[in-house]
């Protein structure tokens, strides 16, 4: 059961060949047996999961149900789920039992999906390796000495290790796509505004976007169909007609034009990554796609721009953690200011504090124009590059990450090296564009390589169609990490 896709599990549930209780119990058993090895879950609540599974079975028995009814989905611990501990990987929320559901969680519950558990992540989604969690580092199922990527590394590792058929994550600078690439699974960051941010713990609000991780493009489409939708409680949620993200899965891709930015293939990407990505592009040519060179001349400025904007927004968003209304409070303090200081110093980890300091500095008096406004102006230049590039192509392709997974601890002492992991993923966040990563090979160490697909606003269905046709012709998405097949 654990190697099956959501699509086929859904057919089995609909035909009553399996029950959601059996399916959920099967994954809970696997998590119990293997979960500790990868440390991909922070909280499990088998009783709550099985209760949802029973409800799904009743719905199916009465002839009701949708594609996700009865499917267990792991949830990144950044999504508030009523009654569940929701920690965001941080000590400061280590005792926070959410009193409400995120919009995405409401949507999943409404579709009858089962919450399989809350996955581990970089603290407040700040990281590219899932090592900054208060709950310890997540390990990569392909090799436990390596990181799974981050920040949605618990979600990507759970899907890769067959501990969940699908998972939800969030992507501020690459946090769905990069772990999907490093863990050998599929991940999609939708167009900004497609998925509501209500109840998704805020990091950088102008960039944060929730999305699905799964083992096939088809499964991503089924999940996005449920996750997307307008929500008045998020003022940036887009009021658009509902669309079926699976509508282009059967469409031929012949004649579509793929843009290949020089900047994605310039020095910096590892040879094993470039080789696999070029082979994938050759496969798309065989499928009838055309390729054209495009240029994103300001792409190199994405990382510097991001490390002004994201920390600035984070320093403001994280001001709410004060030890007064919820979450951790320092045990000893002398006065109110001391209560804030001690609570925040003890409650936040080093990377979160670093970003709060950067953000506070760039927003402080005298520096605002030089840093924040300048970064917003360069952000526009980067977005314009994409508008220009999409005049001559339907989608852009390149590597998701310059390297495959790196060793645990390798980049923890050098923040800048860690930040540069996201050089290929950050531009789509800055421009608000949809981005996806799908497995396209293994490098010489046997670690997965991700192919990134970036489309224009609302091009998700087209991108998923392309990925699905690729996955019909290749089997990289079906590869199983060693020891995870039984």
């Amino acid at each position, binding site marked *: 059961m654990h190697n099956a896709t959501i699509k086929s599990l859904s057919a089995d549930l609909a035909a009553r060949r399996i029950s959601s209780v059996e399916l959920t119990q099967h994954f809970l058993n696997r998590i119990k047996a293997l979960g500790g090895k990868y440390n991909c879950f922070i909280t499990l609540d088998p009783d709550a999961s099985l209760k949802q599974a029973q409800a799904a079975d009743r719905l199916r028995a009465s002839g009701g149900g949708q594609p996700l009814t009865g499917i267990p989905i792991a949830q990144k611990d950044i999504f508030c789920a009523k009654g569940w501990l929701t920690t965001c990987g941080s000590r400061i929320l280590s*005792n926070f*039992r959410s*009193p409400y559901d995120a919009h995405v969680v409401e949507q999943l519950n409404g579709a009858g999906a089962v919450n399989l558990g809350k996955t581990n992540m970089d603290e407040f989604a700040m990281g590219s390796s899932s090592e900054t969690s208060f709950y310890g580092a997540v390990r990569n199922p392909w090799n436990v000495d390596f990181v799974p990527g981050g920040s949605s590394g618990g979600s990507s590792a759970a899907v890769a290790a067959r501990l969940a058929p699908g998972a939800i994550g969030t992507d501020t600078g690459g946090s769905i796509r990069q772990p999907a690439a490093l863990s050998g699974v599929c991940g999609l960051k939708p167009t900004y*505004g497609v998925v509501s941010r209500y109840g998704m713990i805020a990091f950088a609000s*102008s*960039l944060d976007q929730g999305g699905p991780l799964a083992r096939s493009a088809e499964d991503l489409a089924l999940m996005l169909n449920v996750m997307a939708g307008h929500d*008045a409680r998020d*003022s*940036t949620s*887009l009021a658009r007609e509902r669309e079926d993200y699976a509508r282009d899965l059967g469409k031929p891709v012949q004649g579509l034009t793929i843009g290949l930015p020089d900047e994605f293939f310039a020095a910096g990407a590892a040879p094993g990554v470039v080789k696999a990505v070029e082979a994938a592009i050759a496969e798309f040519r065989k499928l009838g796609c055309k390729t054209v060179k495009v240029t994103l001349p300001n792409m190199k*400025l994405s*990382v*510097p*721009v991001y*490390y*002004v904007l994201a920390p600035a927004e984070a*320093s403001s968003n994280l*001001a709410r953690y*004060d*030890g*007064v*209304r*919820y979450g*951790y*409070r320092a045990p000893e*303090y*002398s*006065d*109110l200011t*001391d*209560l*804030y*200081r001690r609570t*925040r*110093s003890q409650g*936040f980890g080093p990377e979160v*504090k*670093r970003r709060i*300091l*950067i953000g*506070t*500095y760039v927003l*402080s008096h005298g520096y605002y124009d*030089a*840093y924040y*406004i*300048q*970064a*917003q*102006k*360069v*952000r*526009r*230049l980067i*977005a314009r590059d994409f508008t220009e590039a999409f005049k001559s192509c339907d989608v852009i392709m390149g590597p998701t990450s310059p390297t495959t997974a790196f060793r645990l601890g390798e980049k923890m002492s050098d*923040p*800048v090296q860690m*930040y540069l992991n996201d050089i290929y993923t950050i531009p789509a966040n800055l421009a*608000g564009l949809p981005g996806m990563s799908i497995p396209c090979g293994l490098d010489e160490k046997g670690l997965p390589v991700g192919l990134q697909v970036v489309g224009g*606003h609302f091009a998700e269905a087209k991108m998923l169609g392309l990925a699905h046709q690729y996955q019909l012709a290749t089997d990289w998405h079906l590869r199983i990490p060693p020891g995870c097949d039984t």
Partner: protein
Amino acid sequence: MALKLDDVKRAADLARIAVDDAEARAALSQLNDVFKLIAEMQAVDTRGIEPMSHAQDLVQPLRRDAVTETDQHGLFQSVAPHVEGGLYLVPKVIE
């Protein structure tokens, strides 16, 4: 422009994060690496470019000025560190 130790301490103070001298010095060297990276962006000529504050050109949606929230203070205060009589308790601020 490199940051000084006082810049780090001032930002930490504004952000209500306690740092001792050793922590501030360690943060200083890492922050200066990050600001070296950020400097690449500062050199760009952006005259005449409108700042882009958001990924989509959105207008602020408005709602009717009506009560929409129900009173859930009991539920919300159930996760607070220290509550008494429906009030959040903090150290005394006014003598």
